[in-house]
């Protein structure tokens, strides 16, 4: 056998993608994506609709061949040894990938059988999963009668019929109502606690922030930033200093004080003045100047960067409207 067949299980990297490119006609869906995900990490791929998240996931799960670039998943090349990759991954695609006509239980049994379980093993496993995902009752009914949230849970269960070493979750909550999203989040948090490597894609900053230890922000098929949520916020999302006007503080005096020390021009927002701040020393000067201009302490507060700010800064786009299905 090939030497790397063994490096497969020994490799420290669960996913290693180098310069993946894939076009559809004129659209460069993946335009040089590189990612490394160590074993056991929950990794978030964050980007707006059309950024190339699904394309990346489809390449990594052997469903789509890249035009160029190399990807190794669980140590195996996705184009050279797709079967070895498929043995080790679980996929929850963006769109439900279950059979709508048969029941949830029949779906899980089918997948078990396809993994080579005997009929009774497959049934036992299906029942375990139905119970765990709170689908015992609906499990007997045809999937097409399921709600969006139930379908998602079935999809998640389907990806766990055999424990995968790497789990791909492509926009697991896009298009779900708040109840469905909350239930799916519960499921994901138990799944991510087990030490499985997870690649989670999402348009929702909150979701990436909540689950991912490391995030790559992608836009137009490129990785535009990478780091832990805290790192990204620290690096990119500027914290802001907000000055509440009034009392002894006039707008003129505040603007004059702020302009001298702030990194960028202050902005008026209602009866507040908002300044982005970069470093502690400058901030100290700012507060001192504002004090001299007549501000009291309770008129000043500092807001930490949110993932929304990071996202906006990187992509120039506001967060996606809630519930907008791709």
């Amino acid at each position: 056998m090939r030497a790397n067949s063994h490096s497969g299980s020994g490799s420290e990297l669960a996913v290693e993608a180098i310069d993946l490119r894939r076009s559809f006609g004129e659209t460069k869906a993946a335009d040089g994506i590189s990612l490394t995900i160590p074993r056991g990490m929950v990794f978030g791929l964050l980007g707006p609709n059309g950024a190339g998240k699904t394309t990346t996931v489809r390449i990594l799960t052997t469903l789509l061949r890249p035009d160029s670039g190399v990807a190794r998943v669980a140590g195996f090349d996705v184009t050279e040894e797709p079967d070895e990759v498929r043995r080790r991954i679980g996929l929850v695609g963006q769109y439900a990938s279950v059979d709508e006509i048969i029941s949830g239980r029949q779906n899980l049994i089918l997948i078990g059988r396809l993994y080579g379980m005997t009929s009774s093993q497959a049934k036992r496993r299906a029942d375990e999963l139905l119970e765990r995902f709170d689908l015992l009752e609906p499990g007997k009914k045809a999937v097409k009668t399921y709600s969006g949230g139930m379908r998602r849970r079935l999809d998640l269960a389907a990806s766990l019929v055999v424990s995968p070493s790497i789990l791909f979750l492509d926009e697991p909550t896009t298009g779900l109502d708040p109840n469905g999203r909350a239930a799916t989040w519960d499921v994901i948090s138990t799944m991510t606690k087990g030490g499985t490597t997870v690649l989670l894609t999402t348009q929702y900053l909150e979701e990436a922030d909540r689950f991912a230890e490391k995030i790559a922000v992608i836009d137009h098929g490129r990785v535009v930033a990478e780091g832990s949520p805290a790192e990204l916020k620290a690096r990119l999302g500027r914290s802001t200093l907000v000055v509440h006007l009034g009392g002894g503080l006039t707008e003129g005096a505040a603007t004059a004080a702020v302009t001298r020390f702030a990194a960028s021009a202050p902005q008026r927002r209602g009866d507040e003045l908002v300044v982005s701040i970069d470093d502690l020393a400058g901030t100290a000067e700012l507060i001192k100047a504002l004090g001299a201009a007549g501000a009291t302490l309770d008129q000043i507060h500092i807001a930490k960067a949110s993932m929304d700010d990071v996202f906006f800064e990187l992509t120039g786009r506001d967060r996606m409207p809630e519930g907008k299905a791709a």
Partner: protein
Amino acid sequence: MTSVAVADSLSTRRTGSLAKTMDEVRALVWRNLSHIPRMPERLADVTVMPVMFVILFGYVFGSAIVIPGMEMSPESSAAYREFLIGGIFVQSVVFMCITTAVGVVNDMKEGVIDRFRSLPISRVSVLLGRAIASLVEGSLGIFVMAICGLIVGWGAHNGFGNAVAAFALLAGIAFAMICIGIFVGQLVKNPMSAQAIGFTLIFPLTFASNAFVPTDNMPGPLKVFSEWNPVSAMVQAVRELFGNLPPGTPVPDAWPLQNPVLATVIWIVVFAVIGMTLAVRKYARGRDQ
């Protein structure tokens, strides 16, 4: 616990080994057949439609059709129905191409194929599973047709062996058509276009043939087309094996009709090989390529 044990045993079973592929195919046939109780209307294509054709041609048009060498009479109508059933047998198995294509389009749309593609299973399993399930449905259709034929006076008059051979030939034609259907189903984006492509291809093929009327009186070019039309050879083969042609019926002087069984076997092999090859290639390449 279960999952760990299975994951271990998985690594010892090679994807693509014959035993594993057979297991996969069996599971997928089971999946496809599980659809039937939940949507029995899907069987209408293979059961109700042929029966309608028997009534339409056997009694509506048939009352005005006389096969060569006979006078218009009640006997000639009975002889026409005897003649007709072989044509409808072939027509209904040829139409399997369309039902299969529609089934495949629906599969592709559902996204469940993405799940199958991401599993460590052989590429041909999904397609073979579909083909065999369709063949089971088709066999049910042939059975219904045979009953219907017996009711309207059709019969097999050429011995048990030849009757079995005729049914085997029909199953072979069904399989070849299913292979083509699996390819076509992957080409198109929705069931409507699968149906449209199917009907524009298959209707002319079945009508410009000897399935409903003898080719003798067709105008020149149409006659030549009909004689070389694969459907005609298939129909001729089935009629001969069932013994549905009155003794001494002249056979057009075209090689496929003079040697209909051999011609049919050749067509089956050609269609099955082309269809399977294209279907597997398309499937292996994936939806987006």
